[in-house]
């Protein structure tokens, strides 16, 4: 089983994720919702650091916390006048939402707890994965190479830049 420090870190991360994701979808003010989303994303980055994927955690912080949350805050500032939060954020479809959410969570939770004997499994050694190997794997064309999705993502980002400019420019 794992060490006490890992268990404490797990409890902290899990509580942060659960509490702030519940708050992010139930709070009344939209800017608070974006802030709670930021905390959830940072806790997710902490999970990646716990799993020894440092590059992935750094990417998560840089892209999500540095890019997407700032984008959200800008969009909220542009589309909501400060002071008037008179419009309610939630519609009256609350019952349908609770039913859908509870059904999915209960089904997946039953499936998860039927495999609960794997839950206490401790982490195996990851086998010395460095940034060199990550770069090699991203740009190689052999069996575990990811050149094609890498280039596809670059084309997608270019299309996204052009699309964003075309959609949002002034007519």
């Amino acid at each position: 089983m794992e060490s006490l420090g890992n268990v404490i870190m797990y409890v902290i991360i899990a509580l942060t994720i659960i509490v702030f994701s519940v708050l992010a979808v139930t709070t009344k003010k939209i800017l608070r919702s974006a802030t709670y989303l930021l905390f959830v994303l940072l806790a997710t980055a902490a999970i990646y650091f716990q799993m020894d994927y440092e590059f992935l955690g750094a990417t998560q912080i840089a892209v999500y916390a540095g890019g997407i949350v700032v984008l959200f805050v800008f969009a909220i500032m542009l589309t909501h006048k400060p002071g008037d939060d008179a419009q309610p954020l939630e519609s009256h479809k609350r019952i349908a939402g609770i039913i859908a959410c509870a059904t999915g969570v209960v089904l997946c939770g039953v499936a998860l707890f039927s495999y609960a004997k794997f839950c206490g499994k401790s982490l195996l050694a990851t086998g010395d994965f460095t940034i060199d190997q990550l770069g090699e794997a991203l740009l190689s064309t052999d069996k575990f190479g990811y050149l094609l999705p890498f280039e596809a993502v670059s084309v997608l980002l270019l299309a996204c830049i052009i699309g964003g400019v075309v959609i949002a420019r002034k007519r």
Partner: protein
Amino acid sequence: MYLIPSLIMFGCGVYGFITRKNMIAILISLELMLNSVDINFVVFNRYLYPAQHDGMFFTLFAIAIAAAETAVAIAIIINVYRVVKNVDINQITKMKF
């Protein structure tokens, strides 16, 4: 073990996606769901196949695609706001203005 917070995060995302009326709040719920799927990729990779790193690369590409998708969605939302002066999904009933 980390699948439990991920599961609850996905449930919150589904709840917010159905009940919210504000378009930006719906997008925030969508981000929660995408994020929980990323956690699942990494956890399954790390616990079941620690010698390979396919789940990590999937998550890396999923983060990039999520960023692109959010940028385009926010551009659309700002454009809709410029026309309708509102981001409430009940008031946006036309696709073409």
